[in-house]
């Protein structure tokens, strides 16, 4: 359950709208059920009153929409950003993808988001989800009493290792308690590194074989902002939608992750939206972990204007041939 209420946020937005400070509000809109929330643009206090929602399912990172809206709309756009979303926002500013003048960024303290897919796994026919301090009461078609799932069990993957220690690059911050980080985000990466190559190969072969090449991971990614994606270029010889074979799957996922390496803020949207639940963040985190350990710690989106590691170098950098020995030494 979020500490800050939807009322607080929509009230804030409504007053700015009414005062003429902003013309649009980019937020989350409620759906048919308690969990199917859609990013949406609100233009009036009435719309906010009717449809605005802020709860544990307001997972969507809204920063990427600002590229589109700052280009197509005239007038200031209020956007609600969770602490982790602000990294994406700041990275987009660094890359000059957003017209900052058109944005009124409001930071929202977040108490951690819930993963609808995790809740769904053990509940058929969810009719309602009520949020409590400790977790969720899941009402279904098939049991009279609601099932309880704790906040920790239902937590969204990215929130397990929350990096939301601070909001950055904001116009205004709503006061409130922020979720405290827990797990080391590189645990799973290290676990995979410690497997044998055969084990790793089979792990990824199994995960990537489910890929249906829907491109949702790419399309949702706030770092994937090319005007024309290499995968959409028919002359590149890359499959952009055919799940042709395991080579193409690896090719797509390696290149997708590589193209955002050094710019990926680890916002976790790719894994969240994957219809086949492929742990795509483990590819991105591998690059982040390698960058951190080879070239020094770097958090994309933390400092506006910072130089991404892949467009930078040091004359004393590690040689590719030394990478494995060096890392094995670190892990030992």
């Amino acid at each position, binding site marked *: 359950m979020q500490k800050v209420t939807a009322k607080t946020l929509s009230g804030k937005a409504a007053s700015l709208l009414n005062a003429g400070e902003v013309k649009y509000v980019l937020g989350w809109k409620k*759906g*048919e*059920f308690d969990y*199917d*929330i*859609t*990013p*949406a*643009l609100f233009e009036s206090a009435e719309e906010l009153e009717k449809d605005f929602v802020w709860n544990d399912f307001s997972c*969507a990172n809204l920063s990427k*929409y600002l590229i589109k809206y700052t280009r197509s709309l005239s007038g200031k756009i209020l956007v609600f950003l969770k602490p982790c979303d602000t990294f994406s926002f700041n990275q987009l500013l660094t890359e000059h993808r957003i017209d900052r003048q058109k944005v009124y960024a409001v930071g929202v303290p977040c108490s951690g988001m819930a993963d609808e897919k995790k809740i*769904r*796994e053990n509940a*058929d*026919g*969810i*009719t309602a989800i009520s949020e409590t301090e400790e977790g969720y009461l899941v009402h*279904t*078609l*098939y049991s009279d009493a609601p099932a309880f799932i704790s906040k920790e069990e239902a937590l969204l993957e990215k929130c397990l290792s929350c990096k939301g220690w601070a909001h950055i690059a904001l116009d205004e911050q709503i006061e409130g308690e922020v979720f405290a980080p827990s797990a080391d985000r590189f645990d799973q990466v290290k676990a995979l590194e410690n497997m044998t190559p055969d084990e790793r190969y089979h792990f990824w072969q*199994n*995960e990537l074989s*489910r890929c*249906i*090449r*829907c*491109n*949702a991971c*790419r*399309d*949702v990614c706030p770092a994937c902002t090319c005007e024309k994606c290499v995968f*959409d270029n*028919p002359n590149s*010889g890359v*499959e*952009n*939608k*055919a*799940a*042709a074979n395991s080579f193409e799957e690896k090719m797509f996922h390696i290149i997708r992750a590589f193209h955002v390496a050094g710019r990926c803020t680890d916002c976790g949207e790719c894994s*969240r*939206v994957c*219809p*086949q*639940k*492929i742990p795509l963040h483990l590819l991105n985190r591998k690059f982040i972990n390698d960058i951190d350990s080879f070239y020094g710690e770097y958090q994309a989106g933390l400092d506006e204007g910072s130089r991404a590691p892949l467009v930078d170098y040091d004359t004393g950098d590690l040689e590719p041939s030394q990478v494995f020995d060096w890392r094995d030494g670190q892990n030992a």
Partner: protein
Amino acid sequence: MRKLSLENLNLAFASIAAKYPLYLPQDNSAGDAEYKKWEQGAKWSDKTNTVKSPKDFFFPQTEDLMAFQVSGKSIDIIDTRKESEDFVVFGVRACDVKSFEVLDNVFLTEPADSYYASRREHGIIVSVACTRPLETCFCKAFSIDPSEPAGDVSCYKTDDSLYLSANTEKGEALLAVISEYTEEADDAAVSKQKESINKIMDRLPLASLTPASFGGGKTKEFFDAPEWKSLSEACLGCGTCTFVCPTCQCYDIKDFKTGSGVIRYRCWDSCMYSEFTKMSAGQPRTSQLERFRQRFMHKLVYYPENNNGLFSCVGCGRCLSRCPIHMNIVKVMKALGGKKDE
């Protein structure tokens, strides 16, 4: 009606698999169901539906159409088609069975698509009634009864048994393969199950959804509706809805250069993708709004117009649970279709 004790289910699967490739929804490592080839020890998933629909069996995501050998100025066409063999798809839900009819209308109308037709002829479909429809299910809106699934064989799974009845010759032949494990039974248990399914159907959150205001000839009515703007606004333009949809049938034909020749293959395409209609001469659908509108207009207006009122949606609910931004046909129907009642 034949009755198969669930204790003998694996033996029955083994007998079928000895004769035909047998595909069955099984749980994968991500906790979802997917169709996989049956092998000894495989467990039939309890999930109501698979992530990918079984349309893959008849209209695979990627398939080779032919090959070419090019030398100098000359071209040889190589027919790479292989003779299909009979196969069994087990555990298909009523909505997905209906989706084959929707696809048939496209692929089997003249000129028929022989790749699809041959697989349809060889596929034996065993459907199963839904005892646990989900909150995202709305097949009833499209007059599909999950307690009366069609297919070559229909079956009903109770706590201890599987009740099977053949609807076609292919189905009879399949039941003959497992006859040693089945016995004749009356339909008391099945009637009871149907009744309970129908009760659940009435309680579903989307039970009252209806496509009544849509249908052929309504292009003008809906095409310029202002609602499309807010509905499509958050759409990412990915292909998730299309690729999990059992009735989406758009495809692309592309060439792959192998180094020694060329393979011409077909793969699923999505009208949500920006290059779907892109030509060197121009782009008729320049915005995501137009692409988004195309997908739903096709399902709710264009397709019924060309197919005697049949909608190109079966209410399986896959897009409801998989869309990254939770925009789906139900929201579209409610936003556009509800207007007239007010």
